[in-house]
């Protein structure tokens, strides 16, 4: 019995088809190679182009092999989906991207004091006192190590900088 025959519908939804996934990965890789190859023209010296082009040829060849292998794998179900819980994934990722931007704009501690408890809440923590306590202890420890002990310059805080 082949893998295709043993796959239940739910498995197919959760894991996705490995062959197709590999082919998509290979296609993205080929695009990356194309962009790099095109950008390599901007390198003025040939000697500096040689090695990156060599690497690009190797990656492109491997991407083609991966694409072709995708046909052989066919409908075989992948071990795990790329994202197992979209809600948790987005609840974590979107605030994290905003946080990365905010750190430079409003300061590390100001943004962290919002980010840590908010994300913990969004991904399931309902004990508010624990959330507040751990966030406070972590930020205090961070301040002690990075500011008080090692005097590392951090982004300007909007409130108490």
């Amino acid at each position, binding site marked *: 019995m082949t893998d295709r025959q043993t796959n239940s519908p739910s498995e197919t939804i959760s894991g996705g088809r490995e062959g197709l996934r590999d082919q998509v990965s290979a296609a993205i890789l080929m695009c990356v190679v194309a962009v*790099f190859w095109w950008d390599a023209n901007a390198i003025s010296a040939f000697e500096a182009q040689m090695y990156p082009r060599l690497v690009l040829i*190797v990656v492109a060849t491997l991407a083609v092999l*991966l694409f072709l292998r995708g046909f052989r794998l066919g409908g075989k179900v992948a071990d795990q989906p790329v994202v197992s819980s979209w809600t948790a994934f987005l609840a*974590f990722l979107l605030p994290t991207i905003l946080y990365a931007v905010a750190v430079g704009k409003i300061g590390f501690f100001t943004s962290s004091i919002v980010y840590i408890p908010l994300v913990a809440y969004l991904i399931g923590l309902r004990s508010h006192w624990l959330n507040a306590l751990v966030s406070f202890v972590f930020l205090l420890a961070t301040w002690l190590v990075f500011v008080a002990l090692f005097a590392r310059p951090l982004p300007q805080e909007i409130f108490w900088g």
Partner: protein
Amino acid sequence: MSIIDILFAAIREILMWQNLAAMGVGVVGGILIGALPGLTATMGIAILIPLTFTMEPMVALGMVAGIYNGGIYGGAIPAILLGIPGTSSSIPTTFDGVPLAKRGEAGNALRISAWSSAVGGVASGFSLLLLAPPLATVTLLFGPAEYFWVALFGMCSIAILLGADPLKGLISSGLGLLIGTIGIDSVSGHERFTLDIYYLTGGFNFIVLLAGLYGLPPAIELAQTAISQQIDAARTAIKESEHRFTDWPSLFPTWARSSMIGIVIGILPGVGGTMAAFLSYNETKRADKDPESFGKGNYKGVAASECGNNADNASALIPTLTLGVPGNAVAAVIMGAFLVHGLQPGPGLFRSEPVLVYAFILQMILTAAILPLLGGTIAVRVFAPVLRLPQSLIAPIVISLSVIGVYSIQNSVFDIYALIGFGLLGYILQRTGFPLAPIVLGVILGPMAEQQLRLALIISRGDVLSIASSTVSMILIALIALVLLLPVVRMLMGRRARIDPKLK
């Protein structure tokens, strides 16, 4: 300066209070990181390297050694108390650790795991001390061509042997090589793939790449499993049995066997501590008079697994320190810690910084030796509240720590964006079956391979064949061919086994 003089100088250095404190903090931090399921020693070192940036190199490396040894041991704590291995190399520890904890012997199991980890770690440290210096002397004879082949061998072996899919491993290596070419070409001084972005002229900061690839994917994983895997606080209680384990001599043969297995596995590129732990466990079970008792709470099972996975630690650094070629992911990250402090691992380091190299080797031994002191039953009681921390809190804390860490390296907000970018890339690659270690290795070894290749070609006046003409080069090319052919051989053997079931 003789070896003895260097060793004594190194001992004097590491016994300074700053070094001792750094090692202690590293071990405790490592145990905590290793004990938290989902976090690994590799990730711990990757996100804590920026913290060591302002320290003296020896103090920083002491902390790294502590995190490494502590992190690998730390995985045993939840493996025994919760049945959840903190790291993959602690999986065999659950086989006997959990039954022991269930019959009220968690304290004994933790004591055995701490002592076994210490024995394995110390034995591995001595193997590094004895084997690395002579190997470094031999590698001093290597020229640019040989170094090029060594770098290529390192990348191929990790790409092929580390992951389940050799093709994806090789692609990961290629991606790493490509990322490594971004920035100014070290030979000609021309900019490559910088897209006119000022921050990219120096290339991506290696630590940012490490923190992104190893820090963020586990955090995203934790976020997704946060609700379903809340740790039950009641289960972390450490029950003390009426009888305290005292029959230590009965573990000596297990320790000797597992140490040997761990050391050999550690030297082999791309194999790692998980394999060492499984092999040690299986061999101990096979050699025992009562193999049936394994999996039901046999002390030797815990001892074999923990001794085996820690015996891999220092010996995995032998290729890193002698050739500058890391043999696994954690060795690559440790190499990053050396590079951050302007130290290029390889035979040259034994000549330029002998005291520092020997001090690091001794720090590996010392941090392993203090594991029972800092990670025994009493310490675990102190750590128990941390084990109860919900994963929903750990995930944003890991991100926050990574962000402040990478920012503090060169006060660049661009590094924070790069961190998030590499984190997402790492997560997607990992989930689609592409291993991450070959990327790191590609970034580390790529520039070295290119530099040595171009140097070899300049020396030989463009004669391409000359880079494969020496005996060492030919041996290395044969090894590369062997590694590249391995998946084909495996595939053919698998096909034969399917045709003839007796071969299975």
